[in-house]
């Protein structure tokens, strides 16, 4: 009995050190050595060398000259994460989606709104929008940036990430990277800052 318990204690302690310290620390060491950028959160740096965000995490854009990410149940707070947890039959959810749809149509014109633009993602930090959601915002942004809409569509198309191996996942656009690309274009007369 006592022998059995002593064995259990030493076995659990030993395996805990192996799997809870040796394993994650070895992975950390190798990851930092081989993939330093990814291992530290895929940060994107601005012109001044300071980090301005992560390529994998949504950040809020409210300016009308920018593409907007999907709604977030956690207000794009990357210290917490999560979805709305609203049931599909929830009155609160249907009201919220109705409200977002009306707001979107007020700014984007009388058109059908892609579902992704009016629903909160699972993580609250979804960095992507669908190509349809980007096209829907194109007219507004082209107008404010004084660009031809066709030119903007070209920028959008250059940022579409297709399905992996043509079958995994969905086509998508990284909002932060697309907005940074727009800001990097030469300034035009009459464009909104």
């Amino acid at each position, binding site marked *: 009995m006592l022998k059995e318990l002593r064995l259990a204690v030493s*076995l659990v302690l030993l395996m805990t050190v192996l799997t809870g310290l040796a394993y*994650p620390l070895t992975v950390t060491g190798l990851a930092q050595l081989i993939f330093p950028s990814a291992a530290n959160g895929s940060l994107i740096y601005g012109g001044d060398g300071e980090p301005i965000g992560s390529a994998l995490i949504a950040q809020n854009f409210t300016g009308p000259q920018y593409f907007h990410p999907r709604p977030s149940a956690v207000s794009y707070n990357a210290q917490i994460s999560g979805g709305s947890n609203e049931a599909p039959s929830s009155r609160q959810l249907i009201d919220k989606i109705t409200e977002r749809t009306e707001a979107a149509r007020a700014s984007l014109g009388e058109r059908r709104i892609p579902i992704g633009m009016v629903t909160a*993602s699972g993580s609250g930090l*979804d960095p992507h929008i669908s190509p349809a959601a980007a096209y829907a915002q194109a007219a507004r942004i082209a107008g404010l940036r004084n660009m031809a809409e066709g030119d903007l569509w070209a920028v959008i198309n250059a940022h579409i990430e297709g399905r992996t191996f043509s079958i995994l996942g969905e086509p998508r656009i990284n909002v932060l990277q697309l907005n940074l690309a727009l800001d990097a274009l030469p300034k035009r007369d009459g464009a909104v800052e």
Partner: protein
Amino acid sequence: MADDTAQLLLFGVVIVILTPLLGRYMARVYAGERNYLTPVVAPIEKIIWQICAIDSRAEQHWSRYAFSVLAVNIVCVLIFYAILRLQYYLPLNPRSVMGLEPSASFATAVSFITGTNWQAYAGEADLSFFSQMVGCTAQNFLAAATAMSVGIAVMRGLTQSRAKTLGNFHVDFIRTILYILLPGSFIFALIFVFQGVPQTLSNFSTVVTVEGGEQVLAHGPVASQVAVKMFSTSGGGFFNANGAHPFSNPTPLTNFLQAVLILAIPAALTYTFGTMAGDVRQGWALFSAMAFLFVIGLAVVYAAEGGGNTLLNRLPIDQTTGNMEGKETRFGTAGSALWAVTATATATGAVNSMLESYTPMGGMVPLLNVQLNEAIFGGVGSGFYSLLFYIVLATFIAGLMVGRSPVYLGKKIEVREIKLAVLTPLIVPIGMLLLPALALQISEAASAMYNKGPHGLTEILVAYASAVATNGASFAGFDASQPFHLNAQALAMMVGRFSFIIAALAIAGSLGAKRSVTTTVGGVPTHTPLFVILMISIIFIFGAMSFFPALALGPLAEHFEMLAGQTF
């Protein structure tokens, strides 16, 4: 649609190819035969035996095996509980996170030791890096090693003749970690980092966003935990949003690989069993029965989610991408449905999309998967010993139908085995239905439901099904941090885990001691499509009889109310 089908088909192909490869490897590992890793791992294994004074040749009677399981698991609970309480004083706590409360610590410790990994906390906010690594990550290994060892011991009982013992728990436990879980997790952790999953011990990064706001990015030793939480079908994530978080599951490729990791061992163990039985058809028969139920569930979830939310049809919304509330753009409905079914069928409980926001039919399948108590592949090891109860019942009923004494793999199924096997139809509905019924009578406990109407009932059904089946899947709006739920769920998890372990080992011990009889003429062979259909029917009838009334009041009621335009 075509792309989605291709993605799901590819998943099936990968699993079917992987099953014999991994299954054969595991059979060699547990038999102590030489394999690819022997030159590297065997010396380490010997050192561990020496330090812990383990006699690797000492075989254990089933009761002794069960006792060793319990001893190791009690130590695990105590250590993890201490870590959670003391995390403020322990190293690797750059944000000075306080210790968890006693009841939350206990519930979390039990939840991880039983392989449930119910997250009654938000990982990135409430746990230090030390707790995540030495607590959560290590416990994922230890809990899975417990379940796989028991699964293998049960297989030995079914396939041995006149043997008094089922192997040595400590030897099986160490082998599981050294030969299977560690190497697999290590390789996949690095692949995940390559794809963008962080792996660092530095404090959270603070950035100033393009529009001038401040954003703090939570990260840490994520990849090492994500790899093992999938491979061990544990499911407890580094982040509150689990596999939906872009740092946990950044690309469609990680999404696919993580789904494969979840199902890899539970599927392959059917082949390991076939190898041990000396007839791989026995393994494929079980695989086929479970794969059939898996595919049906996947088709239902995919169709329901792809169809979108009927209540939004009157709005000027383009729903071609399906029901996207709670889902991530990069996965879409197919990648989300794949996870919803894989993680609930296997007792993993990880999510890459919020099940709470699934359509009623899309959410009912994950609930039913959990309620069937690991009948569809199940967790690593635990899936096999949970299936044992269904095997015994199916064999018994087949025997009754043809009027022969029931025989499985040459072992007569007799009164003792049947009595123990009835545990599933008894304990499972009691825990999964009576506990929520009790909770609904207590107004404080009932207030834990977040959504109104029938969906609220579904929430509480999921919570207790998840605890009894040690799955960990949740409708995350449900507030499990209330004392009633913390305690009732901890109890349900312990009973759900250890009563089945002990009963399964008892059945295995009893069968293993019997002499194998040559299969009688006219008996029901257990490797044929006939037996596969019988297994499917037994699982389905048990599920339907036990849970249909509850499902009618929850997801089915919600579905029809929504068709009538009703909101809550």
